[in-house]
């Protein structure tokens, strides 16, 4: 299991509770991992607001792109950082500065992104922090969908899931 360890129950609670995710580093290039993740999460019914100064004002997957966290409209439940570990530091500080205005509760750093100092500052400011994970992969893992690719979900499941219409779902039948 990737470092750090998070209980499945925590990840599931986050993914069930949030509605709006601002994705910092979302790319308009359809072969990029951030585009994949954004497409998937939109498909699952989340509202995604892309943040990318290079394409601010344009659209990615039909969603208006903002230049920075400070310019985001509210409300935003979770910030997903799709940048490298070093860049996650200043972005985290910007998130902390805008936390109350936006109503942010979760700071999420993507697979491969680990910044312990930034995480400590965010936690001290009252945010829940997840690092080195992808919300797409976690959603696919906990809903069971990623098992269709033979991925080891590291779970045992004795319940019947509701999966009609919109693919896998974290809702219980």
């Amino acid at each position, binding site marked *: 299991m990737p470092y750090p360890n998070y209980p*499945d129950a925590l990840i599931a609670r986050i993914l069930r509770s949030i509605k709006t995710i601002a994705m910092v580093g979302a790319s308009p290039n359809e072969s990029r991992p951030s585009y994949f993740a954004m497409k998937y999460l939109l498909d699952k019914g989340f509202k995604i607001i892309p943040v990318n100064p290079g394409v601010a004002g344009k659209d990615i997957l039909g969603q208006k792109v903002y230049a920075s966290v400070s310019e985001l409209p509210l409300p935003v439940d979770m910030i997903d950082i799709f940048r490298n570990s070093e860049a996650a530091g200043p972005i985290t500080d910007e998130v902390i500065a805008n936390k109350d205005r936006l109503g942010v509760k979760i700071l999420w750093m993507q697979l491969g992104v680990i910044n312990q100092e930034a995480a400590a500052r965010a936690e001290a400011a009252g945010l829940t922090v997840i690092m080195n994970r992808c919300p797409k992969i976690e959603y696919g893992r906990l809903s069971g*969908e990623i098992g269709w690719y033979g991925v080891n979900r590291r779970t045992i499941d004795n319940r019947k899931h509701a999966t009609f219409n919109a*693919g896998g779902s974290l809702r219980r039948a």
Partner: protein
Amino acid sequence: MADYGFDTLAVHAGAQPDPATGARITPIYQTSAYVFEDADQAAALFNLQVFGNIYSRIMNPTVAVMEERIAALEGGTAGLAAASGHAAQHLVFHTIMEPGAEFIAARQLYGGSVNQFGQSFKKYDWHVRWADSTDADSFKRAVTDKTRAIFCESIANPGGVISDLEGIARVAADAGVPFIVDNTLATPYLLRPFEWGAHIVVHSATKFLGGHGNSLAGAIVEAGTFDWARSGNYKTMTEANASYHGLRFYETFGDFAFCVAARALSLRDLGPCLAPMNAFLVLTGMETLPLRMRRHCDNALGIAQWLQSDPRVAWVNYAGLETHALHAAHQKYCPKGAGSVFTFGLKGGYEAGVRLVNGVRIFSHLANIGDTRSLIIHPASTTHRQLSDEDRVKAGAGPEVVRLSIGIEDIKDLIADLDQGMGPKPG
């Protein structure tokens, strides 16, 4: 998640009640294809942007449960099934190798793999160099700047040989190449190669995983620990792929990227997919893997000990015996058991071997291993018949050699069967 035990995972991992019907047993999804929700979802599926089913050559929900269960038992990040163990190996090397590349393989190998590596792979301009699986230095000496992988069996067919996984893993790590281990004879119940530094495990699930001799099946599992980007030698993993709009597999799928690439490129294009019915039978078999392996190993040790004390037997090659040269390796790598496939030699030579395979009434005379039934073969008169006398001896298939795959029957019946099959004792 909770730290579930091996026996719990063998029953449950990968499976869940069917979302459509609530069926508790994994259904056999006997379908070629899957409807798309709409054109947009179809495009996203083909681009690998969302998880879902397209066509059963690439994925199937029954097969997927088997893939995940094997991955869970091996402690890997993901699995991929194939039509046979050979097909699984083909997919692994197709994902790793480029024309002109080399890999190093232990010479203690299933004969079919010797042919695949030494003959068929040449047509792709992939070249094997041989080493000794009990001598890690022999792998080190075979490394060149063209080496792209190292391969061995954990417990080598026809048995008796326990490979020095830890030593070979160190050579692979120093060379910066993935270490691939065929774990068919040990199964993850006895030995988990990832715990000794392997990066990829392959299986013939036809053998102990399925366990009942009723289905051909193969599997790949990845540990998720190999850095495919560092050397720049694994283009399939790291370079923009033209058939997926420039997607880079390693960057996009991270620690399960190898299985996604092997699925979305090699399995898609070469086509050796596993039938859902076979996956169902292997899944059912895997639920009892721990129970069967314990019995297989107990029976094998008991029979090896009995053979060793018999005056008609020249030698017994089973690492579970305290007198065996690799007994210490067995204690180190797989203390729960040395497997149930091994060879022994008959003092009566070729004629005694023929007499035994003709005389047994419980052991089945056939070319397979890892069945609930006990199996026997006399290589010199069957699988190795075409070789010269000298080559037969080199391959461990001399005239006096008999190979056994011990099943889960009552040991007293198996011993009585071998006893009567070997004929009268001398003197």
